[in-house]
């Protein structure tokens, strides 16, 4: 009596014979090897070569010349295998049909090596544009099968910190893309070609509508550094520039606001204005104070602060806890007694948090917050598919001595939405930290700031205004 176990790999069958009783005088053969295995031992391990793409019937037969016994038969097909090769190429600004050696991504283009993994087969490939002549990568001995997932991790482009590579073309078209790094492939020949085009996409950006932008950092590589997507990749009718409409970009240091082609994209208006490397611009207005002016109304119970009508032209002062409570209890809206601006001074250094909407009941009435501390916009605020005409979810001006932070929900996978708020957003000593990333192709700006000029007109009516004075003495 015998039984057998076997294991099939792509090239061999390994089988074991389990013989119960004496095997003396018996020899063994199998349907594949067609060879006689004289087997005096009770257990032996043997290998039989098989070929990919063939159908086999497996049976082990033993005989002593007089009697013959055979195992059950097992029919199986050895999967065919092929090598998958192709170009890993830069499709930025190119057609998917442009794959080829001339557009191949070189090691010098990337901040690291490309890694390749056929996840459905747990096979790793090799990428070496310096060595391979007719392709960039190869994954060897891939079993024939459809809908296999080939993932290629392409590092970020060198010297373009605000961009990353995303898969945009698979064999001449934009279909079969699973994610920004993976494609669906079918393998049904011994040499299978999949050219993979990757284009530079923004790693997260913001858009300012009708407002000036200032970056004060002098010790940074660039004072303002943003990757603007290609015009064709932008969604929601947003401009392919930092500023949409009228405005100018100013920086103490240099500017790096470029699209994937390397073009400067400061302002989309015909009258594009900018000034960079101003060094010490002295743009901060020393006439502005973070202290509430005399006569401000002190507020200690904020439970209904924004539910009551604020007085336009008035100034208020309260601590952060109080105002955060007021925001939480506002129901997402506020109102003023009449057209104008009310100014709220925050007296401590804690973080002012916008966890929900904060909208004015009237376009001609606004609240201005002045705080010594940080300001945080929650990652929960935002929308998935905004447009350039989306309404702001926070309708207030903010002047902070510290930083203004747009919280991100994390990007693995990307799950940030786009938040639209009003400006001015001013950070005197910190930065405005645009942390959000829409992921994938980043077609939407992750943050949109709409400049509201109401403060230019209405702050004159408050004690938060300034004056210019000139003196002349006549003896």
């Amino acid at each position: 009596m015998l039984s057998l176990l076997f294991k099939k790999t792509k090239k061999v069958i390994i089988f074991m014979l389990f013989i119960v009783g004496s095997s003396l005088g018996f020899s063994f053969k199998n349907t594949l090897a067609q060879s006689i295995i004289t087997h005096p031992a009770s257990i032996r391990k043997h290998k039989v070569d098989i070929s990919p793409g063939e159908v086999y019937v497996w049976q082990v037969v033993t005989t002593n010349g007089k009697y013959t016994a055979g195992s059950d038969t097992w029919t199986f097909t050895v999967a065919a295998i092929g090598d998958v090769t192709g170009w890993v190429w830069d499709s930025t600004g190119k057609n998917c049909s442009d794959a080829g050696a001339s557009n191949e991504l070189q090691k010098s283009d990337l901040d690291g090596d490309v890694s390749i993994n056929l996840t459905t087969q747990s096979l790793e490939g090799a990428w070496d544009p310096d060595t391979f002549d007719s392709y960039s990568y190869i994954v060897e001995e891939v079993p024939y099968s459809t809908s296999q997932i080939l993932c290629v991790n392409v590092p970020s482009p060198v010297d373009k910190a605000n961009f990353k590579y995303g898969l945009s073309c698979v064999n001449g078209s934009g279909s079969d893309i699973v994610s920004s790094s993976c494609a669906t492939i079918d393998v049904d020949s011994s040499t299978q070609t999949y050219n993979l085009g990757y284009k530079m996409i923004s790693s997260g950006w913001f858009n300012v509508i009708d407002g000036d932008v200032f970056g004060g950092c002098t010790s940074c590589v660039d004072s303002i550094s943003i990757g603007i997507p290609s015009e064709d990749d932008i969604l929601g009718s947003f401009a392919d520039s930092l500023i949409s409409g009228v405005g100018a970009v100013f920086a103490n240091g240099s500017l790096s606001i470029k699209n994937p082609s390397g073009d400067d994209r400061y302002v989309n208006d015909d009258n594009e204005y900018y000034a960079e490397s101003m060094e010490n611009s002295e743009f901060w207005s020393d006439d502005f104070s973070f202290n509430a002016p005399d006569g401000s109304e002190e507020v200690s119970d904020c439970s209904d602060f924004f539910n009551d009508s604020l007085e336009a032209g008035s100034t208020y002062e309260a601590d952060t806890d109080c105002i955060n409570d007021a925001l939480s209890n506002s129901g997402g809206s506020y109102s003023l007694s009449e057209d104008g601006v009310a100014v709220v001074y925050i007296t401590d250094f804690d973080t002012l948090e916008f966890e929900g909407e904060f909208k004015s009941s009237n376009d001609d009435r606004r609240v201005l917050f002045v705080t010594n501390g940080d300001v945080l916009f929650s990652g929960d605020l935002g929308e998935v598919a905004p447009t350039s005409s989306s309404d702001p979810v926070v309708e207030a001006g903010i002047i902070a001595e510290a930083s203004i932070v747009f919280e991100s929900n994390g990007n693995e996978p990307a799950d940030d939405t786009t938040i639209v708020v009003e400006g001015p957003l001013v950070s005197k000593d910190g930065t405005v930290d645009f942390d959000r990333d829409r992921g994938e192709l980043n077609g939407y700006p992750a943050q949109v700031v709409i400049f509201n000029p109401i403060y230019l007109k209405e702050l004159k009516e408050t004690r938060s205004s300034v004056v210019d004075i000139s003196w002349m003495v006549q003896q």
Partner: protein
Amino acid sequence: MKTDIHNEKGQALVFVVATMTVALAVGVGVSLRNLSSLSRISRTDTSSRAQAAAEGGAENVLSLTDNELEAKIGASPTVITYVPTGNDNVTAEAEVTVDYYNLSPDQDYLPLLVQKGQVVEIVLSGDPVEVCWSPLTEDLSTDLYFTSYNDSGDVARAGVSASSRAGFPGSYDSKFDGSDGGEDGFSDCYTPDVVSSVTGLRVRSINGISRLGVYPSGDLPDQGFTITSVGKLQNVEQGEEAEVSVVVVRSFARASGIFDFGVFSGSMGMPLD
């Protein structure tokens, strides 16, 4: 009829703004609320005591709101009397009058001074203006940037480069319009596009201090207030009388320059990205 105010603190406490008296017509942007905390110095000789009284009188009304100042126009002078605290029995008096500030009939342009990086605002009533300028010091040329607005919430922006590039940082790079050449001693002139029905034009000086001349194309609205304070001494011996006038031009209240920005990241150590 005069309005009398007696300052019980006495002349020794009359305070002036040192930085504002050292030069004529030096524009300084000041928060209204901060005017009460400005530095004080005392004066002893008669001329200086008269000047101090005049300056004190002017400062007494400087921190009033636009509405409060308007209420003083055409009204009786405000008289502030400083009671002597020393042994000389000399009393100082300041007589303060307020009027609107505008171009005088012999002026072709409104003179203004803009500090480096800062903003001044010109009140307009629908008509554009030509702005001519020169740097305060020849070795530090200045570009100008303009923001105009109206009551409907419209905004327009414009920038202009000076013809001279003296004193700009070596790596400075900008894209502004070219100037139209100078006139009346100004090195450059430019007429910025403004919004329709413009009510305010804000001018920012880049790289240095700019001396401006604003040439209106029509009637220029009032730009603020002229505060005239005349300091006099009483009970002084004959021949030692002194009278000093201080004229202060105070603009209408305006929003600070930071309100021009949609996003302002002032950090010296972190990029805006």
